[in-house]
């Protein structure tokens, strides 16, 4: 039994990217007290004036009650729940800035699916280093922003060591098209979120090369196995990887053409350079960054993650795609479940 607030908490969504905007829109549609913080004042003004986010969600009308702001000092203290939807590269700086105005009663949830580059830290760890928040959670699952904006049904996991966080989030999203399930495994959820973007890069490539459904299923299954091995090595629960944040997110990200990382994988396989793709995309393909962090971390832990190694070789070591495929197929296969973590 735990105590919960008697009122609907007010929310500040931080980050005007596709996912952050979509979450703020859903909450506003549910008549929740929500505001959207964006870094640039002109973007906030545009959202308030035109009720759309032309850069990240073109063609989608936002709930007219949704108000945006660029004033952190004014917005943070007023919110009971902060939802951080900030790319991993900017996460620490934003968390530190938020920390100037944060107090211990506030709940902080992030939706960022990535790891910090240099430190390999998960975003909840970055939060713990940068601000006084303790009641921290992560929301993760198969949540393509475009589908969320259309009001199509979706589900996600809200993981936190604090029931107060997960219960408040369920309360906030109750009745909306986004169904939240509670969990306690912060580590597994964050690892799954970062890792699935790497597999999505490969999935895009597999489809672009026309390798077939069998190959795709092979990639996803073995990718999930590698994801779980890393997660368990870091202290996560193996069961998490069979849930929404694990296989659920993997299925959506690796099969939908709406997925950014999948798109990047497709374009890479067609011969475009990473630099050219990055320059042309407003969105962040977290998988590109995550590959580096996960590859380094796996090596430090003594884990042999062949799919991650192959993608790393292609992205950062100058290997050609045929060489990478050859490398993968020539590996001894062994027993399927021998490398799966035991519960």
């Amino acid at each position, binding site marked *: 039994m735990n105590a919960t607030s008697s009122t609907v908490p007010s929310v500040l969504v931080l980050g005007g990217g596709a996912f952050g905007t979509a979450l703020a829109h859903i909450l506003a549609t549910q008549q929740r007290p929500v505001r959207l913080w964006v870094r640039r004042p002109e973007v906030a003004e545009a959202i308030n004036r035109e009720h759309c986010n032309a850069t990240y969600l073109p063609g989608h009308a936002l709930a007219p009650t949704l108000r945006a702001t660029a004033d952190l000092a004014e917005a943070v203290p007023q919110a009971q729940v902060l939802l951080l939807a900030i790319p991993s590269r900017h996460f620490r700086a934003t968390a530190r800035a938020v920390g100037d105005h*944060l107090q211990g009663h506030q709940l902080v949830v992030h939706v960022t699916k990535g790891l910090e580059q240099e430190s390999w830290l998960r975003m909840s760890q970055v939060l713990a280093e940068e*601000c006084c928040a303790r009641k921290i959670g992560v929301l993760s699952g198969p949540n393509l922003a475009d589908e969320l904006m259309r009001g199509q049904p979706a589900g996600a996991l809200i993981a936190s060591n604090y029931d107060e966080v997960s219960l408040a989030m369920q309360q906030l999203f109750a009745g909306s098209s986004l169904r939240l399930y509670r969990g306690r495994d912060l580590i597994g959820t964050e690892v799954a979120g970062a890792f699935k973007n790497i597999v999505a890069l490969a999935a895009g490539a597999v489809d672009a090369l026309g390798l077939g459904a069998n190959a795709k299923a092979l990639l996803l299954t073995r990718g999930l196995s590698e994801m779980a091995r890393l997660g368990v090595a870091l202290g996560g629960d193996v069961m998490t990887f069979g849930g929404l944040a694990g296989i659920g997110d993997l299925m959506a990200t690796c099969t939908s053409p709406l997925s950014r990382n999948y798109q990047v994988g497709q374009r890479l396989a067609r011969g475009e350079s990473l630099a050219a793709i990055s320059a042309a995309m407003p969105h962040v393909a977290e998988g590109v960054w995550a590959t580096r962090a996960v590859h380094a971390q796996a090596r430090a832990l003594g884990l042999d993650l062949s799919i991650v190694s192959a993608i790393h070789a292609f992205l950062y070591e100058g290997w050609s795609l045929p060489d990478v495929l050859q490398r993968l197929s020539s590996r001894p296969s062994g027993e399927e479940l021998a490398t799966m973590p035991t519960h």
Partner: protein
Amino acid sequence: MRGEDKTRVRAQVMDRCVGRWSVSAQACERILEDTLHEERKRLETAPDNALSAAQRARYDALQGVLIRGDAAAQRAALVEVVGAFFDDVVGHFDPRVHALATRLLPVALNGLLRTLSPLRLLDMVVGGSQARLGDQLVLSGHLDDLRALAQRGTIVLTPTHASNLDSVLLGYALHQLGLPPFTYGAGLNLFANPLLGFFMHNLGAYRVDRRKQARLYKDVLKTYAGVSIEQGYHNLFFPGGTRCRSGAVEHKVKLGLLGMGLDAYLHNLRAGRPRPDVFVVPCTLNYQLVLEAETLIRDHLAEQGKSRFIIDDDESTQPKRILDFFTRLFSLESRIHLVIGQPLDVFGNPVTPTGLSLDPRGRVIDRQRYLFIDGVPTSDPQRDAEYTRELGQRITAAWAADTVLQSTQLVSATLWAHLRASNPDLDLYRLLRTGGQGSQVDLVAFYPLLESTLAQCQGLADAGRLRLDPLLRQGDPMAILNDALAHFAVYHTRPALRRRGERLEHVDRHLILYYAHRLRGYDVVPRHVWR
């Protein structure tokens, strides 16, 4: 505890424990059944004496109430059992004896440990001799902060626990710092010890009978600690529970008692008390030699993970051993380091000497807000358990960083790693038993290994992750080895290792492993050497 407070504390403990377990007739009956079951199990092996007979009679009566009594009778039985447990825990306190003990302590420790004669002891007290313990117990760290915060709120001191001497030395150290005695729970066996018992009893200790496994008893213990904090009594918890068996820096803490700091803070806020704050102060005690090392490591190895919970026949129960231990340590001018760590609030945030809580970036925060629900400090057991778990993590991190590495540990760790590397095919137990290939190590080969381990430890010390004894900071491997050998030669039944010409002979490998374990968890030597 002051006499007038004891009555008030008793009333509050009774009120809370009885209230908690009598929310329904079923809850009351269940807790009484558990108490009856656990207590009868304990009494099966208790010595036959008047006390046991009285307790057996009490539980026979309780059984009658459980079979025939109505809800009111069972509640009355609950009140009686809680009251009896409270009296077991708190015992009989005499303020006059307390005053005498406080006066005796600074000199008596030395006196006690130099001679067992009460006359000699009295002589020293009257003569006011400030013998040498003060020189050998080196206090460092946040001493001023501790003193300052003890004026602003209630302290919960959370030391590492290696030896039954810990609480006595802590009592001495607190006195040196000008602080009043701290309340703490000491095992019943320590009260029976003729040397330690006197001080235990009269320096704020309450009695913990670890044989009593009834939930209700543990609840009374915890509640007593919590209420005493609320009343402003500084407390001393050993969060690791019993003495660490392996010799390693403890990395796990028991959260039940630790959580009473937060509980007291919350009660204080809700009651609007003028000085509501509770500060948690981690602390480490670092010995060159540990009084009970031989027994502790034997217990650790006998059944890893199934250690005896209670040891009542170790070195600390033998006055002669305690005497030998101290006189020989003194003869070497050995140092015992007591490091007071960074004070924390009950959530694990660092606290300034003026009592302000800081976030990880050093910004001042309003700590009571961690307890707010709808703007009011409110209990949430799940949340509060999680806060306490995080506090526990910060305490163990502080312990690791505030551990002072000494020569016996550095030399042992180096030697143990070498033994493991030289005998890769032997498992831990076989290596302990046989010593592997040869019982001696060439000093020419050993010194570079020692230098390498020391260099890694210096790296950790530079990064603030470990502290080094001054001898280790000087960095002369020969002096370090000689210091370790001198220590090993003077106290233990057999030396852990000794010098034979230009070779080093490992004699008691159990002890080598015990002292080596101090570096376990620092990644200075490969992890596999511990398995």
